[in-house]
């Protein structure tokens, strides 16, 4: 009963192998066992969006997934969307636009915005608002967050060669 299970998956491009209890959520497993604490845990029932990660390229709630369910899958956290040094273009726009205060919601918003811009490189403000509707921010308000995502999209369209790639140039 409740034996640990073998889990093999890819995290931010690196193969990971671990033993997991069936009841561990992906969010807790990432934070507590793999020490990837960029994925934040807020509500733990799928409402706040702070734990948003990419599962095979699609944004999902890590608190509503069991770790064992990512067997064989490709998981990307905010760490995987950040360059080794400095900030990605999206992160730099969040800073420039004051799109964060306490920063608790920021990793989830970065992951969600990244997924949006992959699918839709030139979203309208309305499309941005719709895409981030599942990410709650309690301090900054959403206007600067929408500004940052919109500015990133515009800048990428001006520089198509660097589209979507983390870069150190915007520091």
């Amino acid at each position, binding site marked *: 009963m409740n034996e640990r299970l073998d889990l093999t998956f890819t995290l931010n491009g690196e193969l990971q192998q671990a033993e997991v209890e069936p009841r561990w959520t992906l969010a807790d497993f990432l934070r507590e066992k793999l020490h990837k604490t960029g994925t934040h845990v807020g509500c*733990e029932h799928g409402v706040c969006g702070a734990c948003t990660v990419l*599962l095979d390229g699609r944004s999902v709630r890590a608190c509503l997934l069991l770790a064992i369910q990512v067997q064989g899958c490709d998981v990307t956290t905010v760490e995987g969307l950040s360059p080794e040094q400095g900030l990605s273009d999206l992160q730099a726009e969040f800073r420039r636009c004051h799109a964060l205060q306490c920063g608790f919601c920021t990793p989830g918003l970065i992951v969600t915005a990244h997924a949006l811009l992959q699918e839709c490189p030139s979203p309208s403000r309305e499309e941005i608002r719709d895409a981030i509707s599942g990410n709650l921010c309690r301090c900054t308000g959403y206007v600067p967050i929408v500004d940052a995502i919109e500015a990133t999209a515009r800048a990428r369209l001006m520089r198509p060669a660097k589209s979507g790639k983390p870069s150190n140039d915007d520091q």
Partner: protein
Amino acid sequence: MKPPRFDYLAPSTLPEALALLASHADTAKIIAGGQSLMPALNFRLAGPALLIDLNRITELQQIRIESDGAMTVGAMTRHRTFETDAAVARHWPLLSHAVRSIAHVQIRNRGTIGGSICHADPSAEWPALCLACDAAMVLHSVRGERVVAARDFATGLFGTVLEPGEILTGIRFPAPPARASWGFEEIARRRGDFAIVGAACLIMRDDAGRCSDARLVVFGAGDRPVLAASASAALLGRGLDAPAIAAAAAAARGEIPCRSDQQASAQYRSSLVETLSARVLRQAAAMNGEHPDE
């Protein structure tokens, strides 16, 4: 806020899953997309001894459109897969459009159509859409297959006719009616929240533009989605003009029982039933180039 202990199995075929469920029917729970079950586990509202995960069963993730126009949707199809399927958008635009109202993109990326239908939340879109389209649920167990019409599937708040050992494997939609127009709208306090009340309609016309068949469905009002039979009947033989729409919306308000909860009073819901019924009927009219006044 952590799930209780349980065992976990992820079969890769339907027969394996059915056999597992048959031998653990009292203690096992099926997990599909998990977007309702995982919160329930985290809150410890659910405590199964065994979780049987259907996510590895690829045969349940397919959307098939037959040559006669009927469509079968695998129960494990994710909302977002359905939403972004170009063939579905051409075939059943009502469904394609309405699915965008389900929660947020992160939930739609993981949640499944079958999971939503089996969870039977009265405010959920899929059970209402299945009712509007006169769909049928395909259920499997080790005993075989049975098919249940959408109108007979829900038994009340979070209740369905699914029996122990049964798995919803697919949803059969009939061919979309020729020259059908439709409408869909819901009211929620915030974008992506469960609807307080929602409505969907599917209107068929004869050559003279009169309604030859109408299916108006309201959800979120009571303990399950309801086909507003009197309202639908009130439209038959009439054009979708302002008086016909007003009469149908009033009939819907009269026939649909509404509940009170922390979201809204029964009185407010009742008012929404009439307002949203009128709005979706006006949308259907606008699709035919008609713009009846409010």
